[in-house]
């Protein structure tokens, strides 16, 4: 999957201010609602929190991938963000997280969502890219790390 088709300057963000799992998720859902049109913030938030209740999406290496499925959206929505401070996200390695990838996809059409996550996870397993992501000083730089990493 070509990340350029999903990510724009508006769908990446550095310096999230949240200090808890819930705050981070709310901030990111807010971004998705702002970037989209006619999206219902409450239903998106519920989809993500429902999924989070089944099993935390905190992975390893300071990465979390909160996501949800709801038929209130008709296509894949995604944001990638870095928080100012490490946040406890109930990660697999018990370490706090700073890199967050959120996707919200239609319940009946999950292909793009899984492909996007697979693609991003491929990039995030690289130590050099994670370091660059955490060091990024503005959104353009962050976006370019993903685009260049993929090519």
């Amino acid at each position, binding site marked *: 999957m070509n990340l350029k088709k999903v990510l724009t300057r508006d769908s990446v963000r550095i310096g999230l201010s949240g200090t808890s799992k819930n705050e981070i998720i709310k901030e990111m859902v807010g971004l998705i609602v702002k970037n989209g049109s006619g999206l219902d913030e409450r239903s998106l938030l519920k989809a993500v929190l429902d999924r989070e209740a*089944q099993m935390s999406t905190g992975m390893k290496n300071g990465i979390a991938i909160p996501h949800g499925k709801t038929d209130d959206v008709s296509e894949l929505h995604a944001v990638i963000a870095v928080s100012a401070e490490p946040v406890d996200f109930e990660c697999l390695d018990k370490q706090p997280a700073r890199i967050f990838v959120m996707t919200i996809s239609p319940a009946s*059409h*999950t*292909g793009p969502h*899984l492909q996007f996550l697979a693609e991003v*996870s*491929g990039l995030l397993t690289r130590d050099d890219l994670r370091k660059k992501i955490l060091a990024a000083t503005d959104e353009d730089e962050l976006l370019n790390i993903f685009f260049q990493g993929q090519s």
Partner: protein
Amino acid sequence: MHEGASLIHMMTVLVLQLAVIILVAKSFGFITTRYLKQSSVLGELIAGMVIGPFALGSIPLAFLGGVPLFSISIVTDLPVSPELYGFATVASIVLLFFSGLETDLKTFLRFAGTGSIVGLGGVIATFFLGAGSAVFFIPQVNSIMNPTALFMGIVATATSVGITARILSERRKLSSPEGVTILSAAVLDDVLGIVLLAVVVGLVRSSGGTDSDVDWGLIGRIALKAFGFWIGSTVIGIILAPRITKGLKGLKDMGTLSMITFGLALMLAGLSELAGLAMIIGAYVMGLALSGTDVAEDIRHQLDGLYNFIVPVFFCVMGMLVDFSVLPKVLVYGLVYTFLGILGKIVGCGIPALTMGFNARGAFRISAGMLPRGEVTLIMAGLGLSSGVLDPGLFGVAVMSMFISSLISPPTLVKAFKGGSGFKKSLVTKKSEDLRTISFDMPSISLADFVMTRLLAAFRQADFFPRRIGHGNLVYAVQKDAVQITLLRDGTTITANVPPDQEAFVRLLLTEEILSLKELFRSVEKVAGSDAMERDMLGGLF
């Protein structure tokens, strides 16, 4: 004899024949799969030979008034009665309907590249070797345009990939580049074989089965008509099939829906016969048209009972048609024909594979995968015998080649897939064939089955096309563009074989699916936790 009594007698004999056929064919089929590890088809075929009119079947039976159970029909010249042959005809329609249903045309078209060139090479080489051998060995045949030569040509082309799929999936090689190439080559092999059959049947009918001068204009017209009917009905079918099944889904009864689609297959089979083509062409086209719909898998499932009943009858009847007395005379030709069929596949599929990045080992693997023959070979040969184009000796030759190829291909295939990469050195790094295996256990087979169904649905939602490979295998090729994943259930274990670049994707998909299953199980626990339901169920019984 009174006419009513005679009809009753005929039906009594038919019922007894079917009884003996089913009992013996099923037992032989069981023995060949369980103890000899061969395809049940071979067992059913042998069953037919053993109980047929040229062996045990010819023994006069006292309770039938001193006549044998299986006698050579005076009406049709065939060694079986017209009633029994009718069952075999319906069975051939069932087989080709299934064969069409199992094809995923969309995936094939997207993924055709290497596969179709390999398939095409195999068909061309075997056709000309088969037809050419007839000219060389049969005195009355002087050109490859002779109907007999044409039939020996098309009989040589058919590949039955079911055996290959089973063996490769057992060895976790189905998603290897060789495995994927074999599967898509087999689709082209099927389609091309069917179109060729349409052309040849048309030619035979118009020339009256004689070796007349070659009229290329006529051949062109017939080929055009045959191809036109095939492509026309396929396209119409593919456009109409989703609408028909959508309408039929309103019935809310998959059993009725499936039988109606089978009725349509019979209809199209009859119509294609009337159009001067063979019946199995219509059956295949109907299956092909439905293969792209979301109910294809359900139709197969619903018609399983019919398949299990009638298909062994078909193979058994084909075995009965083998006249042993003529076999010694055609033994040499039979061996040569078998050898040429194998050579044709090895050269015809191997050379294109060599030009597409495979090395000699890879090319041989692909060729070996294309060797098994099965139902289509027999259907084509049976058609030749019943229309008089093939004599009993040549029918025996066709059965012999099917038999030998099917026996030698499994060990050949197993051997071929040992050792290193099948790719040329320069390409090894580019296309790694090193597959990742993800597998997990379920507590019971029925739960594993349920989870398997859910996983297939999840793959479908992720834009993949799952397609079950072969009949009776629990192996699915899950394809999307150039990506193929194999999903199989062996006992309680579910395994996915995945190319490395798809591993992340599949792991994510499996995780999400397992989570939603757990959610489901929690809701089941709520039901299981209280005994209110079964108390209600028992009501006031005690």
